């Protein structure tokens, strides 16, 4: 039973970090609605993904693997946790998001709706509409079938629409 430690070169990891951490952080922002949580989550995901880097058959897979790790980390963290408390005001204050002067109410309502969605619906929306992943890729990351992704997204959209008072 042989086992030992190996090391990925620090430079290599630093490169990975510099290249991919910003995207991971941005996805985490959408998933958590809180900068502090997003940093935590992206960090956690990066550590997890970097540790698996050597095992990836194709090194180009790293961004996809990291994205998956971010979503998985967020799913684990959201367990038994108040997803819903991350709402618009906290988000604006923390993330330093600049909001347009007009349509604040609508933005607020949408944002509030986003962060009260069940976590899987929010992740599905983020992967499809922010990361521009296909339904198949989204399904892979969420560990479900394409039909489930469709359902998650249509329900997510329906909830957002309701938040805007039934806009088409």
């Amino acid at each position, binding site marked *: *039973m*042989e*086992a*030992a*430690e*190996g*090391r990925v070169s*620090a430079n290599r990891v630093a490169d990975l*970090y*510099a290249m991919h951490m*910003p995207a991971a*952080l*941005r*996805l985490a*922002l959408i998933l958590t609605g809180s*900068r*502090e949580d997003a940093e*935590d989550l992206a*960090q*956690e995901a*990066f*550590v*997890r993904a*970097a*540790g*698996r*880097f050597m*095992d*990836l*058959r194709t090194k180009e*897979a790293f*961004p*996809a693997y990291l994205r998956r*790790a971010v979503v*998985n980390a967020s*799913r*684990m963290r959201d*367990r*038994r*946790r*108040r997803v*819903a*408390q991350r709402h618009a005001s*906290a988000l604006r204050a923390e993330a330093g*998001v600049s*909001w347009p002067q007009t349509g604040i109410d609508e*933005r607020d309502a949408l944002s509030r709706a*986003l962060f009260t969605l*069940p976590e899987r619906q929010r992740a599905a929306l983020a992967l499809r*509409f*922010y*990361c521009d*992943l*296909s339904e198949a890729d989204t399904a*892979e990351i969420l560990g*479900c079938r394409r*039909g*489930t992704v469709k*359902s998650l997204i249509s*329900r997510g959209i329906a909830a957002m629409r309701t938040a805007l008072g039934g806009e088409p």
Partner: protein
Amino acid sequence: MIEAKIRDLLAEIASAPIDVHFDDVRVRVRRRRIQNGTLSVLLSVSLIGAGVAGASMLGHSRRARPVSSGCDAPPTKIETRDSLQITDVDVAGGTVWAIGSMFKSPEVRPISSPSGVEIRRGPENEPKNILLMRADDGSWDQPPAPPQGNGTELHFDVIAANDIWVTGGTSNNSANVEPLVQHWNGSTWTRVEVPHGLGSYELRAVDGVESNDVWFVGATFDRRTVVMHWDGTAIRRADAPSPDSSYVTLERVLAIARDDVWAVGWGDRPIALHWDGGRWSETKIPSAQTDAGIQAPWKTTLEGIAAAPNGDLVAVGHRQTGPRTSDVAVMRYHNEKWSQVDAPTMDNGGQALLVDIAVTSDGTIWIASRTTENGIVAATLAKSNGSTWSIERIPSVQMLSLIASQGNQVFAFGEAYHGSPHAPQIDTDVIVRCGAS
């Protein structure tokens, strides 16, 4: 239109200024080895206690390593080619069980698409995504795991070694997302049909009194509580109160007897439902009044429940202490009344993180979570003898999120990574054992 607005919103949220630093990162890579032509990884538990920095507890070590006074890390040996996260833990018949999901390394090839890559799913019979583990004299063995439920969060109840229920994952037989429930009868795993017609829903916890009396709880996607019951022949929906709230979920169920079952969760108030053998009713939790001044909703939650040897119950959750801060809340059910009791101060940096509760046979209450002290994050076990809390910090373990008692011991499960936030080392699932042996 709405889709464009959602895109705009997501882009806007993601456009917040970010600042990425990178200092001295050290990543410990699990050593791969070749066995029978298969690449496998020895998942090591890396627990660094005082004076053993850098030491790695590898799978073949048979000696428990002390991690702090009164606690150690029993040797664990989990061989997997993938990364594992434990999502539930149970004790049955004096044996500790855990269930987790493994994350597959997806096979990916670059293509020219907005996402830049295409992820290819491996053959359906590729490595199992679920790992069931049973503590066996200082190491873990792996009974057959449920075959379905890719990469999803799993919860389970071991009624006996030949009577195990697993919930988690989803199926989409219909237009709705519905939970996947699987049962082990000692020789095979069988998927068990769940009720339809509730829209999309999930079952987040399961606990059984005996083989023909098993309860499941969760929530619908439109935020009503869900309680279901297995009577030996089918899983049927039970009629249970669903407090009117903007967000309701049941998180845990504790089946003590046929006429004594508890489900806890939260909405805009902490929720505790009780089954008396005839019906489910909501019991009053007094804590809501103590949240005065905190903007509703999202005040106090209940996220874990355990029975004490004297018949009392204890439940743990979070109490919002400000717009962005929270601390642990503890409730006790005594003489048919819930009351809020003194909770340990777990300054967890203002974040509502995972928390769990267990009671050992000597009546000691244990809470697993994490604390932040001078910016240093550490997994923390708080221990109460009924009047005072003492806090045990587990160095170099980030967070303990699950805890189960076995006699006078508790087993806490969580994750560790080392180094500063900007100089992380690889995390692993860790198991910490505390208490008198």
